[in-house]
């Protein structure tokens, strides 16, 4: 009597639908998935070990490259942790600028998610539209910070440069035109029969499972848990803004889609509020040991030159201790746990990656489903391998 054998196939690290170098080993019974084992680590670059040999300022560019769709958010999480360790107060204008950039980055990250997710499922049109909108956001970043994908805009104590006047007009134009584009995407997808058939009741994650597996972000909110770091532990003046948190009911792929679309609307509203209420003032904290002096002073004044040299090469010496600070990135709760022993290098930098824990819950979502639904589920969880592997 032959015993039942399952077919094992490999959805390898080079695959158009795995959103990076993720390897899934699937055991199939026909087309039904019996067991799914993710293999990660193909992009492990040793960021945590590398940050132990750099000064606190030099770690900021490394954080850009973690979740490369959400660079401003990563910078913000690290910089908030270091400022908490130092007990440093950030000026109000810098806080509002940080919020504006973080929300614009959230819109850009969700636009990438939308384009690539629907492309995997088969809709070829929306990706061209979403990437066109994203170009507007990246142009704003380039004017403000100098880089499109990895701007490294934030500094410990504030932001590096103030907002130029022409860029304000660009941001205003984007904020005015974006709701209409969102309406376009919804017209293509939300009531579309094919979209509904491929996303409803697929990849369901129940509320208890989501909490037990440590899932955060839109994936958690789609499973009917109304929790967001911006409301639970407000940072960087988020409590001064007026926004709501969308959440779903069932926890399937369609709910995650709706949650992220609503989040884009709310992010747009937050950027509009930040632009209207931007306070005046400095953009970097006045502490002479931590903030770099302005470039004009460095090129004319001897004392500023010496200060710049000392801070850039040696850094500063924070008090010994350990802190944890987290932000709501586009993927979930991104946290930095920094242990300091009093020297100018961090003793331990631990990155709490949201996509790592979200991916751990993926086998629960796809086991028992069909193989064609794996692609929908992976796209809806929205993983970024740079963050999972660090």
């Amino acid at each position, binding site marked *: 009597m032959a015993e039942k054998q399952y077919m094992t196939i490999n959805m390898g690290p080079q695959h158009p639908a795995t959103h990076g170098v993720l390897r899934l080993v699937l055991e199939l019974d026909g087309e039904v998935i019996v067991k799914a084992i993710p293999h*990660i*680590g193909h992009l*492990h670059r*040793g960021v*945590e*070990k*590398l940050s*132990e*040999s750099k000064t606190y300022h030099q770690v900021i560019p490394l954080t850009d490259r973690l979740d490369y769709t959400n660079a401003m958010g990563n910078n913000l999480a690290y910089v908030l942790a270091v400022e*908490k*360790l130092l*007990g440093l107060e950030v000026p109000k204008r810098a806080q509002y600028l940080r919020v504006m950039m973080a929300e614009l980055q959230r819109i850009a990250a969700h636009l990438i998610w939308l384009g690539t997710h629907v492309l995997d499922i088969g809709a070829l049109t929306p990706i061209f539209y979403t990437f066109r909108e994203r170009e507007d956001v990246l142009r704003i970043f380039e004017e403000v910070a100098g880089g499109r994908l990895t701007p490294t805009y934030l500094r410990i104590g504030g932001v590096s440069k103030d907002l130029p006047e022409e860029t304000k007009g660009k941001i205003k134009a984007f904020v005015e035109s974006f709701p209409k584009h969102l309406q376009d995407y919804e017209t293509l997808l939300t009531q579309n029969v094919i979209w509904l058939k491929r996303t409803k009741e697929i990849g369901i994650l129940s509320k208890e*499972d989501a*909490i*037990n*597996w*440590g899932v955060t972000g839109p994936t958690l909110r789609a499973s009917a*848990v109304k*929790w967001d770091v911006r409301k*639970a*532990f407000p940072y960087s003046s988020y409590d001064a803004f007026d926004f709501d948190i969308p959440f779903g009911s069932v926890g399937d792929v369609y709910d995650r889609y709706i949650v992220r679309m609503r989040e884009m609307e709310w992010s747009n509203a937050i950027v509009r509020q930040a632009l209207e209420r931007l306070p005046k003032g400095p953009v970097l904290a006045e502490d002479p040991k931590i903030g770099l002096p302005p470039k004009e002073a460095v090129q004319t004044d001897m004392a500023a030159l010496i200060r710049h040299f000392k801070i850039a090469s040696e850094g500063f010496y924070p008090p010994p*201790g*350990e*802190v*944890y600070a*987290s932000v709501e990135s586009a993927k979930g*709760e991104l*946290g930095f*746990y920094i*242990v300091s022993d009093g020297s100018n290098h961090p003793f*331990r930098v*631990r990155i*709490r990656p949201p996509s*790592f*824990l979200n991916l*751990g819950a993926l086998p629960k979502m796809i086991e028992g489903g069909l193989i064609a639904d794996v692609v929908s589920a992976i796209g809806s969880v929205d993983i970024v391998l740079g963050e999972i*592997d660090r």
Partner: protein
Amino acid sequence: MADVHLGLKKLREKFPSSILAEKTFRGEVTVTVPKGMILEICRFLYSDPDLRYHFLTDLCGLDLFPDTPRFGVVYLLYSMKNNERLRLKARIGEGESVASVESIWKAADWLEREVYDLFGIPFENHPDLRRILLWEGYEGHPLRKDYPVEGPDFDKPFVPEV
């Protein structure tokens, strides 16, 4: 911010002898406990109806070379009911192991595998303890303090086995 940390208060009442050290720094509460009591304390924090620490935010390792005991495992717990965070720390010597909390929070599954991979700390009763970020057959545990950043064989040319 609540003026009394509920988790700390209840821990002081229930396990007074297990609190080796407690510290409040920048509004965060850290409690150091002996490694043998980790599973029991975590189970209490999870199931107590007033506390309900149902969310394991993070689990990571620390290498405090040349201090002894050398390693530390840090658990960051979160209670949605009270909106408060609690950090538990356990010091582990070289070659010793600690109980796995995977039976309480499934999130610990991959997190503990990562600590085992990068530090070499084994976890008892873990369903599937193997390397996660580095490949099978890799020698050494990179995040230890005596491991060089560039790796031991940086100057030799790299040949992949296809």
